[in-house]
């Protein structure tokens, strides 16, 4: 009665949604507002394009090499040595990436709630839980994602309570500076949305590939809509002041008052947001651990979950002395780094595979 590791298509969407949104919705409005103070809400629509590209890349790579992740198919496409080299690059990228999101999480918690708790403790506590989820394998990961994704997106509905306080004139004048600022504002979020590429690690476990594709597009659509909702609410509430706030959504939640009774709901936001962040961190950690095990040909990835989680926490602290450095990294480096790994390299791999005509067999070693 050993049941196989499978993911339902709908579980895939529930995993992908927090992977993008968990850290995204806190900082993205502020970063977008830097470039297009009145029009940054439009950038949400633009970011769906790179998101769609990553989905196409991930699914077509998987269609060519069924049952294989990008790390395994990379070794088939460019040969064992170069493939492993690419895998190693991915490993360090994912490791750093996991570290950065855990640092973002720790910064947020530390700056707004637990002022005196050591940063390392905050980031490690969630990473260890994420490692527990990773140890459970895709089964636990996908199941917990459903529950946590639903719970963590509930606060977005609370934003609708702000409707009476919104001032829609902040949206005007539209596109007063042309389209370029909007494009610039879309630069940062596109890095977030391209993280959808992490689905490459879960596609081998989905039975119905067609539905998997559909559900990832659905996830992308919901991501686009919720990003736009958040951007609009923040814009209409704070106006051009948005860029001065570190976490505009948090400010919006502080502003909230329902019937003079429910006030200061930001602790609730934090609580729910932790859940979304756990999904994100566990998905990223899973990608890191799987990349590691497939790169070095280790059959049992589970025993690496905890060491790599701690390593990731350290990567999040290295060379980032303060939150300003972190935001510079997100704003200036991640914008190029993420698309490199989620769009450029997969595209190159796909092109090489297409030109050399390499294909995977139908039988794929799922667990490396």
């Amino acid at each position, binding site marked *: *009665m*050993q*049941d196989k590791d*499978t993911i*339902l298509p*709908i*579980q895939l969407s529930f995993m992908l949604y927090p992977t993008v949104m968990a850290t995204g919705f806190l900082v993205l409005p502020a970063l977008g507002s830097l470039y297009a103070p009145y029009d940054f809400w439009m950038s949400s629509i633009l970011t769906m394009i790179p998101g769609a590209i990553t989905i196409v890349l991930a699914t077509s790579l998987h269609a060519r090499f069924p049952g294989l992740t990008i790390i395994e198919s990379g070794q088939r496409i460019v040969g064992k040595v170069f493939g492993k080299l690419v895998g190693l690059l991915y490993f360090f990228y994912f490791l750093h990436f996991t570290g950065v999101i855990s640092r973002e999480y720790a910064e947020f*918690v530390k700056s707004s*709630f*637990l002022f005196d*708790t050591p940063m390392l403790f*905050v980031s490690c*506590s*969630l990473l260890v*839980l994420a490692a*527990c*989820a990773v140890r*459970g394998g895709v*089964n*636990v990961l*996908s*199941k*917990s994602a*459903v*529950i*946590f994704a639903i719970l963590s997106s509930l606060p977005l509905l609370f934003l609708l309570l702000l409707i009476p306080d919104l001032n829609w004139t902040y949206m005007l004048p539209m596109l007063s500076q042309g389209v370029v600022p909007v494009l610039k504002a879309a630069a940062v979020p596109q890095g977030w949305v391209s993280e959808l590429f992490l689905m490459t690690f879960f596609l081998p476990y989905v039975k119905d590939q067609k539905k998997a594709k559909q559900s990832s597009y659905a996830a992308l659509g919901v991501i686009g809509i919720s990003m736009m909702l958040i951007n609009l609410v923040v814009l209409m509430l704070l106006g051009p002041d948005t860029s001065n706030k570190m976490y505009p959504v948090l400010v919006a939640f502080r502003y909230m008052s329902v019937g*003079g*009774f*429910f*006030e*200061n*709901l930001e*602790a*609730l936001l*934090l*609580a729910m947001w*932790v*859940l979304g962040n*756990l999904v994100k961190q566990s998905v990223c950690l899973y990608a890191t651990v799987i990349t590691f095990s497939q790169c070095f040909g280790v059959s049992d990835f589970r025993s690496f979950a905890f060491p790599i989680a701690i390593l990731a926490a350290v990567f999040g602290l290295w060379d980032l002395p303060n939150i300003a450095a972190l935001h510079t990294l997100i704003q200036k480096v991640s914008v190029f780094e993420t698309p490199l790994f989620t769009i450029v390299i997969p595209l190159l791999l796909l092109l090489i595979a297409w030109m050399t005509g390499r294909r995977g067999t139908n039988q794929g070693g799922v667990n490396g």
Partner: protein
Amino acid sequence: MRTRYYSKVSASRSPRTRREMSEQEKQPLDLALTVNLERLQTVYTSCSDFIVRKFAIGGQMEAAVIYIDGMSDTNGIDKYVIAPLMNAEDAEGANLSQLAEKRIGVSDKRIVSTLGDCIGAISNGLPVLLRDQEAIGLACGLIKWEQRSIEEPAAESAIRGPREGFTETLRVNTSLLRRIIKSPLMKLETITLGEYTQTKVTIAYIEGLASASLLQEVRSRLGRIEIDGILESGYIEEMIEDTPRSPFPQLLSTERPDVVCASLLEGRAAILTEGSPYALIAPISLFTLLQSPEDYYQRFWVSTVIRWLRYFFAIMSLLLPSLYVAVLTYHQEMVPGSLLSSMATAREPVPFPALIEALMMEVTFEALREAGLRLPKQVGAAVSIVGALVIGQAAVQAGLVSAPMVIVVAITGIASFMIPRYITGIAIRMLRFPLIILAGTFGLLGIMMGIIAIVLHLCALKSFGMPFLHTIATPKFREMKDILIRAPWWALDTRPQLYDDQPVSHRQPVKQATGSGQEGES
């Protein structure tokens, strides 16, 4: 106490006893009666309830009836076995089975041919008839022992629904099931477990509904049990669970035949144990533990609302004290101003931090609950007076505990009693304590950490291979109608798909009989 007669006992396979005896048991019976009796005497040395009644068939052939006093019907033995045989004139030359056919007026007769069979029959209350010059014996189904009559289930009461509960006698329990599900497709497989107790355990299922792999798994897990004795189905439960270290029960234990039958009809399997009024049901999900049989007997609107209420309070019983501690200790700004001031006034004389206060009260409450449970009924009232007056009223007046904390503890207690399965309520209440400590140290964040750990554990948990968070964590919209709401019976037209590889099975088209009868549906 009424006495019931049961003349049939299910075919039991030759029982296992201690290993040193097993060799001897395989021996076939001897031709000589004296040898057989001697062997049995040695097996049953110092057993004062072991009785051998020697007599002569037809006044010539030596024979003996062997039974255990108190487990067999002595009247019946006298009347239907010994008397007719003693008076038999045609006994000359007839063998035992021919004699039995003609003379013994007992419906259940079985041939026993080895010493082990003999012992098994005798220990189960079947008197064994042995005759000289014959290497076989005859076990007659004249069992009679004292047993409890069928009563209303004590731990699972319902306003509407059958009031019969299981008893300690396996055969009564299976008959209760058979009375509900008359189809011969309901199968009852019996095995014997326990080196010394030789407890009969029956697996009940409906052929065609229960998946073959589930039954295979149940059989193999039960077959692996090696234990001295089984006094309650709890022994079995712990031995066959997927994750015995989990605080959550992974098998449903119930003393209601209607619950067992409903589960069988959904394709689950039930395990009934001799000597225990609790049947085990597998596989289950978390939501099975939160459902009451009455949900299906009441109007569906009522059931739906009650289900929501139950889910809400189940979460409350887990989280309320820790939320209170977290909000009071770290997130005072979340409390509306007027409420905060009244809470602060109440807490002013209390010398303890909220965490200590909560732990103190919760532990006291658990102690009171346990004390009230174990005490004789007459003393139980005293406990509740002490609990309500001393712990509640006096502690608040003395300024040791704040009144809001008493309210929180009381609501938590009530909330946990709303969970229809007592044991599930306890599991949730136990998890409350680590959460309170986390809340007192890290506030809401700590509670979240605790919740994440619990949910991750639940996601990894399985009950006989079925995910414990079935239908929620692996979304199946077809089955939500029996989880999120309780859909009316005509809409519950599919059985739950317990395993992914199982095809969706439709119940017979359930149609609603229209009130006016004009539609002509029936």
